[in-house]
């Protein structure tokens, strides 16, 4: 599994130009990682086969049992790797209006922590409101994010004149459409190099929720958008979320063949410290912190651009925020559900 790795580890400087469609470091701070970098899961060294990433809940964490069902569902979603164009419930019937849907947020953070997937868009650190939905990028040599809506008056689309901004987003070479997935996902079908765009296109289109709405997909929101919405759900992967995962599966040669392709399986260990690659926990954090992931990556021998995730990923949620866990009586099956949650049974 590949994800082009854009690391944001800038310390003591405001965030800028961070996290692309893949995780990549801020080049102003860490010039050794750039938009050509590609992460893979732990232990991938270039050999084909299945890669297993073990996700645990820290036994000392609050909400251990409470988060288990939703975390398990998010992991199943990653393993299924099925794209949906109807994954977004803007006004959830169950998530309280001020709450964060834990499963949706867990899915986002897991994609960072188990796969190195970055963000779809530049985010509000770069520009407020809908301009923040512009396709993720570095600012380029001029040091400025050139965010403009283009002739169609909408940000994030194929006609955005982005000047020298450096694109992070994998676009389909054939059509630059982010709402479908090519039959084969590798470097023959996807690119980040703007010179590979279809004729007349100026920049990579991303599939953010407004672009999706305009394209006839009103219930689509990429899991990897920077901003999450309170009271909403995004519990399934969208087409470009799956592309980000699948591209890496083409291995070091970035071509879907048998030589170095691999599959990824995320194993949910539960509340444990046994052989964990990612540990999930709730901690006391200041109010501005919702959730985050801390990971390491190491260059794979012989490559200057391919990394494998390493060490133990630290995935945290702020206990001082309002979370909705979606735990219901049917969460672990009708027969074994916790019937004490039923509000009334008559007679």
């Amino acid at each position, binding site marked *: 599994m590949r994800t082009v*790795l854009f*690391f944001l*580890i800038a310390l*003591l*400087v*405001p965030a800028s130009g961070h996290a692309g469609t893949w*995780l990549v470091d801020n080049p102003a701070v860490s010039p050794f990682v750039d938009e050509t970098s590609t992460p893979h899961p732990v232990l991938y060294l270039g050999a084909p086969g299945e890669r297993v990433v073990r996700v645990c809940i820290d036994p000392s964490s609050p909400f251990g049992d409470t988060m288990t069902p939703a975390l398990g569902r998010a992991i199943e979603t990653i393993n299924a790797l099925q794209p949906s164009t109807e994954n977004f419930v803007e006004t959830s019937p169950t998530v309280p209006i001020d709450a964060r849907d834990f499963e949706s947020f867990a899915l986002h953070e897991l994609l960072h922590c188990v796969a190195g997937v970055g963000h779809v868009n530049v985010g509000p650190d770069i520009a407020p409101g809908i301009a923040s939905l512009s396709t993720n990028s570095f600012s380029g040599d001029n040091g400025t994010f050139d965010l403009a809506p283009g002739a169609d008056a909408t940000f994030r689309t194929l006609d955005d004149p982005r000047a020298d901004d450096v694109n992070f987003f994998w676009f389909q070479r054939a059509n630059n459409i982010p709402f479908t997935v090519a039959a084969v996902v590798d470097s023959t079908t996807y690119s980040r190099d703007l010179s590979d765009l279809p004729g007349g296109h100026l920049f990579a289109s991303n599939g953010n929720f407004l672009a999706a709405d305009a394209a006839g997909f009103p219930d689509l929101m990429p899991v990897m958008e920077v901003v999450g919405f*309170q009271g909403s759900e995004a519990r399934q992967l969208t087409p470009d979320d799956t592309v980000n995962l699948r591209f890496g599966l083409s291995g070091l040669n970035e071509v879907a063949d048998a030589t170095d392709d691999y599959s990824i399986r995320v194993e949910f260990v539960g509340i444990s410290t046994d052989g964990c690659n990612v540990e999930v926990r709730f901690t006391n954090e200041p109010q501005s912190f919702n959730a985050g992931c*801390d990971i*390491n990556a190491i260059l794979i021998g012989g490559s200057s651009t391919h990394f494998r995730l390493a060490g133990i990923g630290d995935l945290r949620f702020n206990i001082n925020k309002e979370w909705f866990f979606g735990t219901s009586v049917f969460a672990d099956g009708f027969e074994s559900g916790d019937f004490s949650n039923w509000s009334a049974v008559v007679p």
Partner: protein
Amino acid sequence: MRYMRYIAFLAAFALLPLAAVSLGVPADQANAKPQIEYPQTADFVVLEVHGKGGRRAVRMEDFLAGRLDDDQPTYQIFGDGRMLMRNDGKLHTITLSDGELRGMIEKLVSFGLHELDTQRVSASKSADDKARFQAEGRVSMSIDVPTYTLRFKLSGFAPEPGRVLQPVDAEVTWHSVTMAAHRYPDNAEIQRLARFERWLGKLTSKILSRPRAAK
């Protein structure tokens, strides 16, 4: 970015309200306790922490209007003991007694953030990162975490009795280090920042779980 700066004591003192009150403890009790002065007024901001960035959670209508929940400072403490915390559009107000406020300021001073040389810390961290990459090919990152800006102001401060009070007007900005601090065990400044973040998290928890006044 502004960095911590000391302003000439007399010049700064001349600008302060006459109500400035010394809260330094008597010398016979103080031992190593710092001496602290600040105006006990409602408009004097002793501490302000503004967290921005990271993965946000907002209401759809606010996002479309370009409003974020981090447009205003997250925490503010004023000279009259009033403390504000903004959380998901809700404003929490806490009133601290003189003693509580003094205790909180002493705690803030103990983190030493007002003495932090941010340029040096940033350069040191960057050097560590590059050395780690060259030695191990390893890079590390904290994703979706906020960037904090702390402003800390006192009209007079001395780390111990008997020394000349100096005004403090400090501003420090950093990318959250609570998850990254373990990679820099020998970097005292990063450890200080991490301790401060953890303290702020616990303070937040305390504020949210405090007993509410009856309506």
